[in-house]
């Protein structure tokens, strides 16, 4: 009959699968260096866009000299999805050194949500000189990086 043959093939496939899993069962690709690079790039780009929306004099993303330092909130591990804290140091538009902290939630596919930990970056919306409001891109933002 057909059934036993298909079951045998399925069993073989599962064995192969388990072997791949065992061989790749190393540490997670969600590491601090990867997150830091993603935050540095994204943060700088967002500031650049925000400056444009606030109709301030345009500045290139590289001018903000963003550096990030991230650690996993759960002590005892330095990789993996879940809650992370990142401290971002950067040069503001007025050339002042600024330091801001973000709470991150990172998923296994390399996507994250960063929420500003304090009030230093302002609320969800920023008021412009003419009274209108724009979204504060740095208050909370999403991003993704390559986990492969």
């Amino acid at each position, binding site marked *: 009959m*057909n059934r036993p043959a*298909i079951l045998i093939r399925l069993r073989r496939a599962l064995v192969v*699968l388990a072997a*791949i*899993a*065992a*061989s*790749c*069962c*190393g540490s*997670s*690709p*969600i590491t601090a260096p990867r997150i830091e690079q*993603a935050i540095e*790039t*994204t*943060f*700088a*780009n*967002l500031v*650049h*866009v925000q400056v*444009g929306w606030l109709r301030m004099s345009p500045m290139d993303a590289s001018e903000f000299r963003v550096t990030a330092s991230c650690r996993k909130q759960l002590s005892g591990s330095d990789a*993996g*999805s*879940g809650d992370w804290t990142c401290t971002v140091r950067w040069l503001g538009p007025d050339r002042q050194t600024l330091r801001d902290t973000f709470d991150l939630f990172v*998923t*296994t*596919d*390399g*996507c994250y*949500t960063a929420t500003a930990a304090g009030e230093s970056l302002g609320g969800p919306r920023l008021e412009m000189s003419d009274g209108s409001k724009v*979204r504060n*891109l740095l208050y*909370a*933002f*999403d*991003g*993704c*990086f*390559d*986990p*492969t």
Partner: protein
Amino acid sequence: MTIRGCAAVVNVECVKLAAQIKARAALAVCAAGPFAFAAAMRVQSSLPEDTLFGRSVKESGFAVPLVVLGFAALWVFPLLASVVGGDVFSAEDRYGTWKMVLTRSRSRSEVFAGKVVTALAFSLLAVGVLAVSSMAAGVLLVGSQPLVNLSGVLLDPAQATTRIALAWVSILLPSLGLTATAALLSIGTRSSVVGIGVPVVVSLAMQLAALVDGPEAIRQLMISSAFGAWHGLLAEPPYYGPLIRGTAVSAAYFAICLAMAYRLLLRRDIAG
């Protein structure tokens, strides 16, 4: 097996599909759903912040198709992929019509190919309708403002449209992989409940499993990961790793499931 023979079967299956409410209802929801969503976004103040691009949904219409893309990965794509594929074979068991269909002038190979082509075409059509409708809903109801991508870079409408179109195209092969899985379940279990329900439930389970850290290889072998591979297209610079792996995995699901399904149908005794 001839092309004409398969075409005849496709013709018959399409007539049957058109007469069934589920196919028409699914396509109607795909066409109207995004408009309802975009209209709601215009009216309400809270945003779908748990989905990528949810924050941007009020300021750029291009966020709408991406929010729909992210939301639909959970259960909508699996359901669209299996609503026809998971029923196209088991319906004959349910109505007892195999003995009528297989005593005409079409071989089992032609019947198999025709039904599979119909199921695959429906999946492609449903995804296509959803894509076009989401884009239209976003642009018409919110606007075509520039979109902030996943690396904080502002995309102009032309760039946004291209990337979004590619993102939706990347969903097609995983959808076909799930359709093939549904077809295999439909033939193997002779049950439409299993054929339609199991791919949805398994997709949900896979996504739940992907929430926890585990062997990376396992995560990449799950077809649900392929539904999120489009993120790299909306990053700067774009990255393609998950997309390449997702394509390979989807193609494997597609080929393996169809091969097994074909063999099952060819060897079955129609005794009921």
